[in-house]
């Protein structure tokens, strides 16, 4: 079993497509397994920049980033 995991791990690390899927779907994996995806300790332990939840922190920083940009949307 250890070999199987190592094999999968090696393939994951080597494949940009697989890594993208991994990063995109890790939160789903956690919540499917009953973990609290808003728990900062859980997210920090993974160290994958998964934090989606501290929205205020992000929104407060928005004004400096947007003032000169002409967004076409």
């Amino acid at each position, binding site marked *: 079993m250890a070999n199987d*995991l190592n094999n999968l791990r090696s393939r994951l690390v080597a494949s940009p497509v*697989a890594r*993208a899927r991994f990063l995109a779907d890790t939160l789903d994996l956690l919540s499917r397994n009953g973990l609290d995806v808003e728990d900062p300790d859980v997210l920090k332990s*993974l160290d994958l920049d998964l934090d989606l939840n501290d929205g205020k922190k992000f929104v407060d920083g928005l004004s400096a980033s947007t003032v000169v940009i002409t967004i076409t949307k």
Partner: protein
Amino acid sequence: MKQHDANNKFTQPNNHSPLEGWVPTEVHDWEGKESNVLVLNYTMSCPLQCDFCCYGCHPKRKEKMPLELALNLIKQAAELGVFSSVGFTGGEPLLYPKEIEIISKELFVHKIPFTIATAAHWAKTKAHASRILTPLKSNGLYRINISCDPSHQKFIPKESVVNAAIVASNLGIPTYVVGTFDSSSQTVDSFAPELKGVRNISLISKYTAAVGRAKNMDITQSNYGLSLGLEELSCYRRIHHDVVVWWDGTVYPCCSTFNRDTSGIVVGNVNSESLRNIWYKLDGSMLIRIMKRKGFYELYEIIKNHDPELYMKLPKAEECVGPCSLCNKIFGSELSISLKQCLEKYEQTKVDKSIDVLCNLVGRKEVMRFLEEIM
């Protein structure tokens, strides 16, 4: 796959639009009710030829997204389930009002609201404006962005902007009147005071970026009274994504005016891969994640620690006017390849380390099942 729950916010009271009750409540509500947005840059044709146009649009340009592609993208977007809305931009998307109406019908079927960015050439009178806006409102138009500033006014009289804005307001469509200026002393409020305080209308002033037709303008931070360091710069969408599909199928991860000039950020092309594939590449990109959630300071620190030689070549924040300008200087240059290679190694290390943590959290068997599923 994550499922967006925007559809759950729609209500269908009798005699009202099924999308009523789902409108942005303030100017920068992007990270409020908006999550991910699919933006269709529908055409490069435009009845105007503004001196600062970021994409060099003008009346003789003919590039346009095929209608079939647009309809197909809406179906793919609905199936993917991650978008809270769709945006139409250009050029001038309402040079093709019938096509936009057809696409809007498809959006209505899937209960996806939409916005339009326009210069309002179609609003010579309020009656003209009403003929365009009424069916779109019925199909889910939930906000309209109308351009209004001295550059636009050379081609479209302000009266058309006012007609379009007032009709939109009366139809209950939130309206952003957006002006782009080359001086911080100019604002939409002073340029179009007749729209100030009108219900449903917000006036937004933005400032010219050195891109497109304005590329050679002498634009610096001091022009706009700014003093932005690296710590203050990050992608404008901190959490979610604006997935921008151009008329030729090229996909960019943002709606910045610099996007087309920044080839290093291209995510893919919908003519050769599915929207789902492109979504995975974008949402699963550690580089984009860092630029959004951590910012450019953190990105630079990572480069400094992993490739000091590359770090020394990176542009200085002070030389740029905002994060998009900085992103353009990096990913629109030969630095893009080296930086991506550096980040790839960083990403590989992080992903590798996270496997052990995941095994502790959910168990080895579950991790293996997950990895088998995504390979």
